[in-house]
């Protein structure tokens, strides 16, 4: 059942983007997997596109989006993460689907709205200033970093069953 549902999620993304996935991975939300998946992403981008700069961007995007997804994932049989990497028409897209705590969805929406109001570098500096002002709170630098260092635009889509998909889209 779960397999069918996740397959449906992937199909929706593929229909919408009319793209072929270059990478599709599903795995349980465990911190221990992040290093391996990030380094696979580096290897994949270096090997497929021959672009070390893109490989570095991919590492930042994969690390931070997976960390966010894992930190806020619910526990249970439906909580598997899905990572897709698509490339077409000179653009590359990384997306991570997860089943977060519902309270996190609103926080994430606010965070992304805030980021969109500023340019990438300006938003990154603003995130530093916020972290400096709020030493007792978590840093929340990750998404601003993805946007700036990853050179991508971020978006969030709510999917069936309480899942969300964070997408990072940028030039190849």
């Amino acid at each position, binding site marked *: 059942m779960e397999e069918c549902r996740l397959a449906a999620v992937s199909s929706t993304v593929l229909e919408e983007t009319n793209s072929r996935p270059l990478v599709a991975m599903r795995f349980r939300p465990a911190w221990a997997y992040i290093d391996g998946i990030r380094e696979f992403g580096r290897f994949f981008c270096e090997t497929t596109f021959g672009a070390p700069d893109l490989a570095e961007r991919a590492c930042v995007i994969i690390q*931070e989006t997976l960390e966010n997804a894992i930190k806020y994932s619910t526990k249970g049989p439906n909580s598997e993460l899905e990572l897709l990497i698509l490339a077409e028409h000179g653009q590359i897209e990384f997306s991570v689907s997860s089943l977060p705590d519902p309270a996190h969805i609103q926080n994430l929406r606010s965070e992304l709205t805030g980021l969109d109001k500023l340019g990438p570098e300006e938003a*990154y500096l603003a995130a530093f200033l916020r972290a400096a002002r709020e030493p007792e709170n978590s840093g929340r630098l990750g998404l601003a970093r993805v946007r700036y260092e990853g050179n991508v635009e971020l978006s969030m889509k709510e999917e069936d069953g309480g899942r969300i998909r964070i997408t990072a889209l940028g030039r190849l």
Partner: protein
Amino acid sequence: MKNFDDVSVPAVPGLEVVVSAPNRVTIKGTITVQDGGGLSAFFRALHGRARENKLAEVELDVTGLKFVNSSAIRLFVDWAVWVHADGAYKLRCRIDRRQTWQKTSFSALTAMVDDAIVVEEAS
């Protein structure tokens, strides 16, 4: 008074840290542990030791630190804020601008607390 290089170095997978007298810290490898993996207390201890020893500067060499997560970047933000808050010493950071995270993050730190840190580029 304890020496600067007596501070205990935490064991973090993938990370090599060397503290050497009188004021130098060299960090190599990667930091991708959750919430900094004990490095916050380590940086805090270095900060305290620098103040006790009335150092004019602490030299932080991150040229060999190839990849970090944003929790690790937060640690550098905190350290810069501590230095900025009491002005007891300057944090002289040696970076490699070819490493994107070093270029972007230390530029932001400089913009945030330019009186507290000095950024030098490795040749």
